[in-house]
């Protein structure tokens, strides 16, 4: 790795000394300018988005929003129910998707020996990651909502989202397992461990950082999702009346609430939610980066 980047440096400095750089080519200058312009454009968009949300949202921030639910009777406006619903949605989705995603990845990497089955699973995983969230929404409504009789509920939403984030988790787990050196497997099997024991005690602990990255990315997807939830989890924003019973009630997450507020033209509260969402997204981004840096095997060694 270090060798490789050294090569690139060499190329760069060699190029700087090339006689052709003295002769300025017009097309080079133009293309170089376009490259920097495009990058600048992408950066500007991110800055404008962050800046505008902060500019409109931060002045609206009020502690009351975070401890109240919206109620006409009590004359309060708040997003506490939506925050709670989002947390429920994250936990439930991961509880369903992580075991299946990690288990499937283990099977593909450690048990299956190529062939059509593996091809089929890879293809379907690819398809799952490409299906638009609105199609997941329709399917979730039909299958979990109507066929399984769960109607509009947080559970319906979580089951739908679990299918949606499955590819994220299994792909990241597979990459993590690929990166575990083969000598680990051989050593464990060589001293008499059975296969599952080896997977449980050697492979999984070594692959944890990669799996965690997948889980964090999945959390990001759940927090950001709206189209798949609008027909499955519903639109109710009420505080839970019972801890487990809340799972079977309809509940709007932060993104859904943001959509309704913006459709109604309540931009103040919409920007408060936008700020909260951006803080969550930024935190998850940093967390993912931190984990991959902290546990990067190549760096530790």
């Amino acid at each position: 790795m270090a060798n490789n980047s050294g090569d690139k440096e060499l190329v760069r400095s060699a190029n700087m000394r090339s006689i052709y750089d003295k002769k300025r080519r017009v097309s080079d200058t133009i293309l170089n300018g376009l490259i920097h312009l495009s990058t600048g454009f992408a950066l500007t968009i991110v800055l404008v988005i962050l800046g505008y949300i902060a500019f409109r949202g931060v002045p609206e921030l009020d502690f009351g929003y975070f401890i109240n639910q919206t109620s006409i009777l009590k004359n309060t406006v708040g997003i506490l129910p939506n925050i709670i619903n989002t947390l429920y949605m994250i936990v439930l989705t991961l509880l369903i998707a992580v075991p299946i995603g990690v288990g499937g990845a283990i099977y593909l990497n450690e048990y299956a020996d190529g062939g059509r089955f593996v091809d089929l699973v890879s293809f379907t995983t690819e398809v799952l990651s490409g299906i638009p969230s609105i199609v997941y929404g329709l399917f979730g409504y039909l299958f979990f909502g109507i066929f399984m009789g769960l109607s509009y509920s947080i559970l319906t939403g979580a089951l739908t989202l679990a299918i949606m984030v499955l590819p994220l988790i299994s792909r990241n787990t597979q990459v993590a397992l690929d990166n575990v050196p083969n000598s680990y497997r051989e050593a464990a099997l060589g001293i008499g461990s059975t296969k599952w024991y080896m997977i449980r005690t050697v492979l999984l602990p070594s692959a944890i950082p990669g799996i965690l990255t997948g889980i964090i990315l999945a959390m990001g997807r759940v927090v950001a999702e709206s189209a798949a939830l609008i027909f499955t989890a519903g639109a109710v924003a009420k505080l839970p009346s019972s801890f487990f019973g809340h799972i079977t009630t309809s509940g709007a997450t932060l993104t859904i609430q943001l959509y309704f507020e913006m459709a109604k033209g309540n931009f103040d509260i919409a920007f408060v939610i936008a700020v909260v969402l951006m803080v969550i997204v930024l935190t998850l981004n940093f967390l993912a980066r931190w984990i991959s840096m902290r546990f990067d095997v190549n760096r530790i060694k």
Partner: protein
Amino acid sequence: MEAKNLSIFSSRKSKSVTERTAAIILRICAIMSIVAVASITIYMVISGTPALFSQGFADILFNPVWNPTGKNPEFGILYIIITSIFGVAAAIVIGVPIGLLTAVYLSEIAQPRARTVVRSAVELLAGIPSVIYGLLGILIINPVMYDIERALFANDPNHQMTGGSNLLSAILVLAIMILPTLINISQTALEAVPDNFRKSSLALGASKIQTIFKVVIPAARNGILSAIVLGVGRAIGEAMAIVLVSGNSVNFPTPFASVRFLTTGIVTDFAYATGVHLDVLYTIGLVLFVFIIVINIVLTKVVKAGVANGK
């Protein structure tokens, strides 16, 4: 009875039971993605086809009139399909050059620190919820579009003012939303090009920019192609970001017309649609699903072609 606990063989037996159960459970986990795709396909086909048979294929797919709640309801989704194709194509035309050039910057030009900054920005762009893109779309892009619209059509009595919620606004939002996909996958493709290619080109006297555009990009064209295909998939499936930005009435897609996409029609009508209207919404979902499956098959072909080319 036998002293089971003392024999190493009985313990081996119990171990092999654990082993076998583990293998079976893991296999079931792996099968889940096949089950999911199969049941989604079945459900989309079962719920999407009744309207096609009851109303006739041509009356839905090739009929431009969408009037689901009228006295003589018509459920033509031709304009909706054309809008989605047209809008996505335009978003790709705008997004691909910007995305590709940014990827070139990241993989070929940027110094480590600048690279980290741009990369985190792109990652952030990918993580922003689509409703937030929609929110900023109606508050930043739509007013600008409305000004342009008023200037352009000031003296045109036939033009129906849209307040800026039009095809062009939706295209801009889509073009921005697909940037992370385009950048990430193109960058991976560019970085996979062996350094020897660059060195040889430079040694022959080509400048750095010539090397990038004449050697590196052509060598990475399969990866860039998959980036574009995935970008199309992302754009055609996007709903919540453009539902309020595009105006959402069914029109032929001209830049300043209020238009409805496949996705946005489902979002707005699903809450109140009943009967045939609801069935047609499922048909729209099926059309969308078919598009995605075709895109995935194309993608698999592209990737396979890349492998066959000895990449």
